[in-house]
């Protein structure tokens, strides 16, 4: 009896498996287009650039037609909501990042998608760390001197960000909480004017993202003190990491990941995971990412799920403790 049951279960499992793989074998069907939804306007920043490099790779490796569908708005919520309610047939994917996936659940009182429940994780793609940069006229030449200076001058130093709850804002909140310093938040709606004001000494520091400031650091217009990542950035190899300077928990980066609507067949997800990992080990792709100041990540689907859970908890705490809320 038990044997028959096992056998039945086995046949059922095999049938299911073959069903799944049959779907995955057909996928991607010729003549159908895979749409990668990017919840940001076209050409906007590193996220869109990485998405386009990845879309190009998926197209070449699967011999399929892949297009990037830009759906910007509301910190990525517009695009993520569209992706969450898209058919789970492998032809709609979501390329999103830390802000929309790990921060927005804490930031917004109500979201029309749940990053951990509305999507199937495919793979982590890349990550871009925050970097502490200060105006050249600031007397502090090192991280230790800076923390010391900030402690002696509470609420005198102003940092720019790209808005309440943005990566640059939260990195600063994390920094203040862990170093017991008080800095004043000055929000901007785009990084360009904040950077201009940083060079012009209207604001004194920023927790910029590496690709947005590497050129100004190299050109000597601002001073970089520390990178909020485990490893040094190839874009700025001379800048030490927070860990090297004795602050191993001051980590902050914007990571990018590929996901699919909930219920997309596992075989398709596996196939896409393999493609992402293959692409990330391609020297050409590595070169392109390095040029953008991004480090390739990759890994299994489970690793993305774990990373998402961990990051959601971490930033949720920062958001709650700093009492940031968006209606």
């Amino acid at each position, binding site marked *: 009896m038990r044997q028959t049951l096992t056998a039945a279960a086995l046949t059922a499992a095999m049938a299911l498996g073959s069903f799944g793989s049959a779907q995955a074998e057909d996928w991607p069907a010729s003549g159908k287009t895979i749409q990668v939804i990017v919840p940001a306007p076209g*050409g906007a*920043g590193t996220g869109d650039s990485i998405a386009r490099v990845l879309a190009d790779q998926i197209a070449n490796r699967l011999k399929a037609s892949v297009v990037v569908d830009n759906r910007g*708005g*509301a910190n990525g919520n517009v695009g993520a909501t569209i992706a969450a309610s898209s058919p789970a047939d492998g032809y709609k994917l979501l390329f999103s990042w830390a802000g929309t996936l790990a921060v927005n659940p804490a930031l917004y009182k109500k979201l029309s998608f749940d990053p951990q429940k509305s999507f199937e994780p495919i793979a982590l793609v890349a990550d871009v760390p925050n970097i502490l940069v200060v105006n050249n006229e600031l007397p502090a030449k090192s991280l230790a001197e800076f923390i010391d200076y900030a402690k002696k001058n509470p609420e005198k130093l102003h940092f720019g960000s790209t808005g309440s709850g943005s990566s640059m804002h939260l990195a600063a909140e994390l920094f203040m909480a862990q170093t017991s310093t008080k800095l004043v*938040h000055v929000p901007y709606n*785009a990084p360009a004017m904040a950077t201009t*004001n940083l060079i012009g000494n209207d604001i004194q520091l920023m927790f910029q993202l590496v690709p947005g400031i590497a*050129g100004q650091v190299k050109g000597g217009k601002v001073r970089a003190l520390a990178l909020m990542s485990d490893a040094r950035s190839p874009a700025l190899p001379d800048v030490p990491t927070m860990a090297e300077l004795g602050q191993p928990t001051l980590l902050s980066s914007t990571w990018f990941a590929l996901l699919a609507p909930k219920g997309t067949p596992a075989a398709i997800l596996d196939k896409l995971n393999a493609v992402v990992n293959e692409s990330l080990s391609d020297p050409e792709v590595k070169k392109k990412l390095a040029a953008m100041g991004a480090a390739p990540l990759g890994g299994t689907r489970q690793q993305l799920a774990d990373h998402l859970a961990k990051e959601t908890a971490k930033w949720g705490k920062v958001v709650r403790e700093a009492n940031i809320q968006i209606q």
Partner: protein
Amino acid sequence: MEIIEHLQIGFSTAATFSNVLYCLVGVVLGTAIGVLPGLGPVATIAMLLPVTFGLSPASSLIMLAGIFYGAQYGGSTTAILVNLPGESSSVVTALDGYQMAKQGRAGKALATAALGSFFAGTVATLLITLFSPPLAEIALKFGPPEYFSLMVLGLVASIVLASGPLPHALGMVVIGLLLGIVGTDVNSGTERFSFGTMQLADGINFVVVAMGVFGLGEIIANLENETTRSLMVKKVTGLMLSWAEIKGIAAPVLRGTAIGSVLGILPGGGAMLSSFAAYALEKKVSKNAANFGKGAIEGVAAPESANNAGAQSSFIPMLTLGIPSNPVMALMIGAMIIHGIQPGPTVMTEQPELFWGVIASMWMGNLFLIILNLPLIGVWVRMVQVPYHYLFPAILVFCGIGVFSLSNATLDIYLMAAFGLIGYVFRKLECEPAPMLLGFILGPMMEESLRRALLLSKGDPGIFFTRPISATMLILAVLAMVIVLLPALQKKRQEAFTE
């Protein structure tokens, strides 16, 4: 002579066969998308970005730059012919340009726009060549207080823009400010007037408002009375400018170029602001001031020169500091990064052939544009003679496509339709939409700068008066206000006396 050496490096890059070709492709594409309403350089460059992956960095930047300044040339065409600003910077051109077209002087208006743009483009390129680094320093002097005062000056100038009654203009500015409030507040993250829809969380796009109020409003008004319209376009006279007319526009073109070159350097919509500023200034200093809004050729010459000079000089912060002054420049920076070039102050020294190559290509591009645009005038003018019941559905379709291309959102199309109706109502009430649009652009920037400045000063408004640039601009704003109000007050007093 260092400068000759630089230009030699530049032209040795820009004047190769393939780069000349990419420059030409860029300006032709730019002209085309400029002519098509709503479809702007941002959407086009974003779409073309992947195509440039295969090109050399210099070729791709030369082409993308060509699209950008080419669009400034093309944008004026529909503004003049059908009162439909193809680009935000050509809104002001529509004010007098369309009136000129109604009087059968469309050809002259288009020629003025092309010649003004050419002159301004050439001069601004010369400025970039000679003074890029010192000019970039100006942008650094503009902190939040300076921006706030600049916006105050801009708002006062917006009242000067209107040719109708003063209370109407003030009311329209206020409506513009209110529309500008829609969206997420940067400081607190609170959504304002978004009615719970995510699509409004980032506010209303300027192009949606401009195309609705100007373009669609005009179409509705024309349909109301088609016969008068077909009468008006039949009598197209002379395409080229007379010597007297060229002499008449010389000074406005020079002033427009100067304003555009300076404002273009500032991050945050310099080119757009410069066309408004140039028009407002011209209206105050011109001997022909009474004709502004009724088809004054100076009202086309000044803003067209200003927006082209501004487009050109907005390259300065991008090329010298790696800071984008508008979304198009942000895309160009993206293109450089993809090619492994780190935009920043080092580009000039590490990649001189790229830096000077792009600048040299602007000289060529402006030349191509004038050669391309002058003969096209004859073609465009004939386009207006197409019967309106064929023309307007085509315009509507292009508007729809253009607006959808902004952010792939259908809500934008509905909004444009709603603003079309509103524009028609404004027309009936004799309220001019230009001051509203300026309020719409300046309001959010003014509010953010105000709050940023007060964050920096810990709530002390003295920051606006102690910083010299800011104080100077506030004084100018007060003076401008007095100039505007004085005639109105005198008139009131005269009326009072006669009674």
